[in-house]
């Protein structure tokens, strides 16, 4: 039997899921052709907000990559909008004239964002929030800075506002109604949410009606009905969506608010299905993925054979995906004479919960702050269970119900019934996860996601899925990455992400907001936090000297006897008679016991007394020598060979390039030390192939390698690629250093970081994607503005004087009156 032809219009989340079900049930039934107005593969639209805020990249949220389409023999027309459906001939036509004939057609055009037609709504700088192009537009605006005005204080608007704020813009949210998210939250929870957003520096104006968008050639401001004018360089409209039904209407299908379908998702033409936000079933249209995924499943079953499957309505809980803000609402919470409210407020903890009852049954719940019980209320709502017996304790949550379940989240999850829904987006219940784990022998979160889809969409249920795994697998399930240290259970990655996402800008703020268990941290976490803050907020965060290891505090290396070693920089390993003479003089003058040549091609003065350091530096500075940062988690040396200047094999000026690299990269702080080398030919005299970043000069240019190690661990470098010019080498080295600075865990060398994030990821971001390379490079250049100053000369001129002088000196034979007491500094 020859295959039937299935054509799909729209490549969003609903049809993506439909195809997964279809290929599972009937892998060979159809030849599939997809038309997508967006020029890309299917991605997780829900997760655009984390991409906007920088917590994820676009690659992270792709649902089906190119290989998937190839593997299933799907023809995907990207960037091809369908303009007509000829139902007689059973042919669809795209904007550029591409046609496809179908036996079965699925319309999944989603919705279009609603744009309020106020004057100025067409100006450049006015965006909706719907797809990746909108996010890119917002990121470009954020790069230029200024103020963003977000019109609409619903789910999308607030996620956009939080994302833009974390990208450094000033943000104002305009909301027409008196409280935020009024469709999902009651006024009390809306108020708490507003306060939380305001405390993060987002301005919120409720009851604000937009009159016009101002600007000549691009957006310059927004005018409100009451005459207020707000400056703005970006306006994001997130005021609602409309099912995209035009195409269906023109084709003569029955259309109400959406494309009308029966419970099998069939439109008024039996060969045409519709799923997603564009579909209207039983008089309702939907805007959250859970019901859309159900539509997808139902439609797939009907497409793969005779089926009884029918769509049923269910309440979908709402959560806001703004890191650090927890809210949960489900069901109906309007007031009514036959309804009862149970409310619990805890102002100190900023938490609020309200459960709405009708005839002793839960019909709605709103939780803000502590949302762990949301799922339990949702379960009560769905089961329609009579709750009169637990009426008195209902509001305190599941932990307070008779069964004696402790306030332990694991126990709470253990207590859930098998059909309790864990993942709302994908409608996955507890029993299904347990079953998958047991039957397929799953042991990691990734595997559970792959097999069940639980927590694979918006991810807010990840903790619950992990709890189910912990319960099912017992001790064999190593839950999370280990905490940074005893002060926190959060791992380095989570802490880094949260610092950015919550805009935390000081060590006390991190410890407060991320609930450190010790009052002031320890010697493990403080230096790490200090580094993360320094790297994430260049120019804003003030380095905390007391959170630095001694070597970085006094810019010299402590030795076993408490003396220090001093290493001046020798750019690219080059020195001169003047420098050598100055070094010799310093050695004599301060009776420095040892002078040694280091592995990084420079000279180490060993055994300097701490009190002598400023004077030693002053003399070295006078000869033009600066700190070599031999102590730093930062650029150490760029080792070079003599290259084409002297060597008969040399292909390029390796020494010159090494010096340029060192002059460009010095001073920046990194998660761990960074060593480079430039070697003049593949004979590799400068040992570039075991460095963090190495450059091997060849006739045609420069081969760049990275991720080498030659310490406790030995590892050869991995090739990044070959480039033609020195400028490219420098740009790539800086971009890679910056990527490492932004992603590396404290004390994690480049090779470990690259092992962790993947060499392909690094290559894609630094070599292949020129735009991304440039962006990293520019962020590096910005941060260098604040870090390229010689710490020695700063100290010679008096910075941190207290470090080098005793507070008081008492001689055994000195009378107290003559004790030397240093005056306050």
């Amino acid at each position, binding site marked *: 039997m020859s295959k039937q032809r299935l054509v799909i219009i729209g490549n969003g989340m609903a049809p993506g899921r439909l195809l997964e079900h279809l290929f599972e049930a009937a892998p060979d039934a159809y030849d599939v052709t997809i038309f997508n107005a967006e020029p890309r593969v299917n991605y997780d639209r829900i997760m655009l907000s984390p991409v906007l805020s920088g917590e994820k990249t676009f690659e992270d949220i792709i649902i089906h990559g190119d290989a998937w389409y190839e593997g299933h023999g799907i023809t995907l027309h990207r960037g091809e909008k369908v303009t007509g459906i000829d139902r007689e001939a059973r042919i669809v036509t795209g904007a550029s004239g591409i046609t496809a004939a179908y036996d079965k057609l699925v319309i999944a055009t989603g919705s279009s964002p609603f744009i309020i037609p106020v004057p100025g709504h067409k100006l450049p700088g006015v965006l909706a929030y719907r797809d990746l192009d909108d996010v890119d537009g917002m990121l470009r605006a954020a790069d230029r800075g200024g103020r963003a005005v977000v019109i609409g204080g619903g789910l999308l608007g607030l996620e956009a506002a939080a994302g833009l704020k974390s990208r450094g813009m000033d943000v104002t949210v305009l909301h027409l109604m008196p409280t935020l998210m009024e469709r999902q939250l009651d006024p009390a929870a809306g108020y708490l949410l507003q306060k939380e957003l305001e405390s993060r520096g987002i301005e919120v104006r409720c009851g604000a009606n937009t009159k016009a968008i101002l600007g000549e050639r691009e957006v310059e401001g927004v005018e409100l009905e009451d005459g207020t004018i707000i400056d703005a360089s970006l306006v994001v409209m997130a005021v609602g969506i409309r099912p995209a039904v035009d195409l269906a209407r023109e084709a003569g299908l029955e259309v109400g608010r959406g494309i009308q379908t029966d419970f099998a998702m069939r439109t008024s033409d039996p060969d045409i299905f519709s799923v997603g936000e564009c579909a209207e079933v039983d008089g309702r249209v939907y805007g959250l993925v859970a019901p859309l995924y159900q539509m997808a499943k139902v439609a797939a079953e009907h497409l793969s054979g005779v089926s009884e499957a029918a769509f049923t309505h269910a309440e979908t809980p709402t959560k806001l995906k703004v890191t650090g803000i927890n809210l949960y609402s489900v069901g109906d919470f309007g007031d009514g004479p036959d309804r009862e409210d149970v409310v619990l407020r805890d102002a100190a903890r900023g938490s609020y919960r309200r459960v709405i009852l009708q005839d002793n049954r839960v019909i709605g719940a709103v939780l803000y702050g502590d949302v762990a019980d949301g799922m339990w209320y949702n379960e009560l709502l769905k089961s329609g269970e009579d709750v009169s017996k637990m009426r008195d304790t209902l509001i305190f949550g599941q932990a307070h119900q008779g069964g004696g379940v402790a306030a332990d989240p694991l126990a709470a999850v253990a207590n859930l019934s098998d059909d309790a829904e864990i993942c709302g987006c994908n409608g996955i219940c507890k029993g299904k996860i347990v079953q998958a784990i047991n039957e397929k022998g799953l042991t990691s979160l990734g595997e559970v996601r792959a097999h069940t889809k639980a927590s694979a969409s918006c991810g807010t249920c990840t903790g619950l899925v992990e709890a189910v795994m912990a319960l099912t697998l017992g001790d064999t399930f190593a839950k999370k990455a280990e905490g940074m240290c005893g002060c926190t259970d959060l791992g380095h990655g989570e802490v880094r992400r949260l610092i950015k996402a919550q805009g935390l800008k000081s060590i006390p703020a991190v410890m407060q907001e991320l609930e450190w268990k010790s*009052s002031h941290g*320890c010697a493990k976490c403080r230096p790490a936090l200090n580094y993360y803050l320094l790297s994430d907020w260049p120019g804003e965060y003030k380095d905390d000297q007391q*959170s630095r290891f001694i070597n970085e505090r006094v810019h010299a290396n402590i030795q076993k006897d*408490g003396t220090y070693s001093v290493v001046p920089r020798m750019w690219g390993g080059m020195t001169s008679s003047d420098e050598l003479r100055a070094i010799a003089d310093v050695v004599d003058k301060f009776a420095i016991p040892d002078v040694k040549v280091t592995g990084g091609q420079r000279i180490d003065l060993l055994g300097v007394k701490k009190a002598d350091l400023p004077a030693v530096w002053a003399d070295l500075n006078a000869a033009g020598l600066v700190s070599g940062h031999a102590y730093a988690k930062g650029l150490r040396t760029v080792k070079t060979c003599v290259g084409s200047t002297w060597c008969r094999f040399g292909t390029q000026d390796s020494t010159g390039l090494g010096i340029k690299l060192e002059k460009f990269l010095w001073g920046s702080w990194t998660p761990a030390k960074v060593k480079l080398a430039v070697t003049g030919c593949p004979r590799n005299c400068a040992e570039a192939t075991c460095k963090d970043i190495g450059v091997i000069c060849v006739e045609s240019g420069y081969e760049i390698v990275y991720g080498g190690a030659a310490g406790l661990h030995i590892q050869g470098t991995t090739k990044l690629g070959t480039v033609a010019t020195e400028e490219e080498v420098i740009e790539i080295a800086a971009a890679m250093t910056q990527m490492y600075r932004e992603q590396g865990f404290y004390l994690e060398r480049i090779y470990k970081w690259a092992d962790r994030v993947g060499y392909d990821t690094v290559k894609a971001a630094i070599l292949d994607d020129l735009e991304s390379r440039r962006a990293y490079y520019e962020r590096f250049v910005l941060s260098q503005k604040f870090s390229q100053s010689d710490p020695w000369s700063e100290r010679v001129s008096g910075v941190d004087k207290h470090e080098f002088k005793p507070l008081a000196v*008492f001689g*055994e034979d000195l009378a*107290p009156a003559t004790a030397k007491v240093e005056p306050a500094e």
Partner: protein
Amino acid sequence: MNALTRDTNAWRLIGSIDDIPSQGARCVKNGETTIAVFRTADDRVFALEDKCPHKNGPLSQGIVHDGCVTCPLHNWVISLETGAATGADEGRTASFPVRLDGRDIYLNLEPNLEMGA
């Protein structure tokens, strides 16, 4: 000379708490002995001989956190109050009485005997 000997045991003004960075330390020299005076985040002061019980590392150069200092040489964590190594490590550094009078710090150059055992 008697008067002077007694004076050695008396409290000495060594400076102001403002001379020591919060979560930092400064040293006081007493002949051959170096005493590290620490200031915690909540403005308490402690004095220990500047010698780690492990291999004599200069504790004044370590990171101060809560009531402890982490030695810069091999990361032993020493209690500022008692001078004793915490956790699995064993050993004790001499501690000295210090007290605050307003913002002035007074140090007693005789080590705490009862704790030195």
